[in-house]
């Protein structure tokens, strides 16, 4: 069935479908069961499936991550939810020393099917402690999968694939995507490990993660008006990474900007740039450019926050710079604006 729904509804639908079809799936974490229901994404689960299959927890990220692991080792499929990815730093030990290793250390006897969902991205002055993405950090550890959906369809399909996957999957959802509406076909399966070309072009490839795809699509539209056809590749899964689609696109366009929703230094953007530079060596007309967060903690105040985050404008300016074009006058261009759509307090 196809329907036009928001990303938050798509996530919710994926949870409902998986919980309906598999009684071993359950959702837990701080605030999953209250009336705000993780920005609506866990809405109705308690009513539908009962408090045993959707429950809040004490503030104990480290232990709750271990609990998810123990439940997964016992044949269940836990989904542990964090309202902010930053809080996962409290659980890095369970993630990087336990979850990612236990299968290996058991000689393959243990299977660990679990999902850690967390919200990333801008909100209402989220500050340095509520703004990390961390996908590159997670992907650095062998034994974990890392997924960053962008479209409602991918939110839906990739969450289902993640729940069905027999490995630990970190699933990161950008806060602003929640309000994006799109067609969702509830029978469409998207396996982990496949990138998607969101917009075709031959002048330049923009390899993007999460929200950066939205910005890139806008940039692509603006650039198209100048006759520049840029291709937007949504990585969708950071680990395993679909090298083929990414490399294929860059070989075609011979130009690449990596726009990652994270800090640049030692991040996933570095991986993409290194990979592309190596695999497309000789095909590139110019070096791969990296865009990402400013190399500072995320400030709270809006004017600095606007500078901290890369945007469609950042991408357009980078493309212009790389191609030696003059800066277009973009006054009056309607960019995605926060101001009109997103309100406080969180």
């Amino acid at each position, binding site marked *: 069935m196809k329907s036009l729904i928001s990303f938050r509804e798509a996530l919710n639908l994926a949870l409902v479908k998986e919980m309906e079809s598999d009684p071993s799936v359950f959702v837990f974490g701080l605030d999953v069961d209250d009336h705000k229901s993780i920005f609506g994404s866990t809405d109705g689960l308690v009513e539908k499936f009962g408090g045993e299959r959707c429950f809040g927890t004490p503030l104990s990220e480290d232990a709750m991550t271990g609990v998810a692991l123990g439940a997964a080792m016992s044949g269940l499929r836990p989904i542990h939810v964090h309202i902010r990815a930053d809080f996962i730093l409290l659980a890095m030990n369970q993630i990087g020393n336990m979850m990612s290793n236990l299968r290996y250390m058991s000689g393959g006897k243990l299977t660990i099917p679990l999902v850690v969902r967390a919200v990333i991205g801008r909100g209402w*002055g989220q500050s340095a402690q509520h703004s990390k993405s961390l996908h590159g950090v997670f992907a650095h550890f062998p034994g974990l999968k890392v997924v960053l959906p962008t479209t409602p369809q991918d939110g839906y399909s990739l969450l289902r694939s993640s729940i069905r996957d027999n490995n630990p999957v970190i699933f990161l959802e950008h806060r602003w995507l929640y309000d994006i509406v799109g067609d969702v076909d509830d029978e469409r399966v998207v396996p982990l490990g496949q990138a998607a070309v969101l917009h075709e072009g031959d002048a330049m490839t923009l390899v993007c993660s999460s929200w950066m795809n939205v910005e890139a699509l806008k940039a692509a539209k603006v650039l198209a008006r100048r006759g520049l056809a840029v291709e937007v590749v949504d990585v969708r899964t950071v680990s395993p990474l679909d090298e083929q689609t990414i490399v294929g696109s860059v070989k075609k366009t011979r130009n690449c900007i990596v726009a990652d929703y994270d800090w640049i230094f030692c991040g996933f953007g570095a991986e993409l740039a290194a990979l592309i530079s190596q695999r497309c060596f000789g095909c590139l007309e110019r070096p791969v450019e990296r865009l990402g967060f400013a190399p500072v903690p995320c400030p709270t105040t809006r004017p*600095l926050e606007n500078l901290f985050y890369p945007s469609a404008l950042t991408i357009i300016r980078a493309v212009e710079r790389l191609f030696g074009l003059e800066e277009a006058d973009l006054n009056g261009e309607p960019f995605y604006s926060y101001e009109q759509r997103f309100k*406080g307090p969180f």
Partner: protein
Amino acid sequence: MKKEEALSLYRKLVLIRQAEEKIRQEYLKDEMKTPVHLGIGAEGISVGVCHCLPAGSRTFGTYRNHALYLTVTGDVDGFFAELYGKLLGPGKGKAGSMHLSAPECGLMATSAVVGTTIPVAVGAALAEAYKGTSGTVVVFFGDGAMEEGVFWESLNFACLKHLRVLFVCEDNGLAIHAHAGGRRGFRSILEAVAAFDCYHAGGDGSDVPAVIRCTRRVLHRMSEQPKPAFLHFSYLRFLEHVGPKEDFDVGYRRRPSREESARLDPVLRFEKELLRIGCTLDDLEAVRTAVKEQVRHGVEAAQNAPFASPMELYTDVLA
């Protein structure tokens, strides 16, 4: 309590209350672009505890820090400047509501990640012992923070080292919308920490004189034999977890009765005390009027103040 002392306490309570009521009024204009965790109902704890602290004491807190910031600094202009994200805020707008600090006044740090300032406060107390100074360090945290492992690690270490640190649990029985009963595997907070080698006390956080008596008692004992103290104060969170509104009608808790509200409002309750010890209604009115002007000025100044320049994005990362 002497009238003068009581009126100065009252002034603090009123300042916090009015500042937060002002936020409630202004917030929906969407100019304060920072999440606000209001402390209406909790003012008595910061005001009471800080009232007892010797000069040179240092404090740490949480994202629900307005009361603490205003108690310790009295800096209304800086407060609003930060909430409006302006350069003249204590964090140049980089901090926002959740990270107010004023190291120059001893308010070292507050944090939006639950429990995280607890060990940092213990480190500050360790520094006092290390240097042979005897400053007191106080860390305020919510009841939910006790569920984080770092609380227990910090308590254990502080007790082991006999540090002069006051753990102040501001217990509203809620973590966002989750009630204590759904989060605690132990009988009561004071019993849970009872086996640790520190002083323990607690009471009604809405009752400022009680908070003061309780704090004075443990500070006295700490001065006789240095050890940490654990203070537990209960209070009613009158508003939603974050944001300017009430939320008694969304289903997870009931609205308090008029009597409960009056009893659990530390400002109203302290007003009774003031009248009891001989202050007049005019005395109170005078305080409120003066504070009102201060708050009005703070908001106006903040609204008109400049933001940090773009280059400020890159400063203050490394020393």
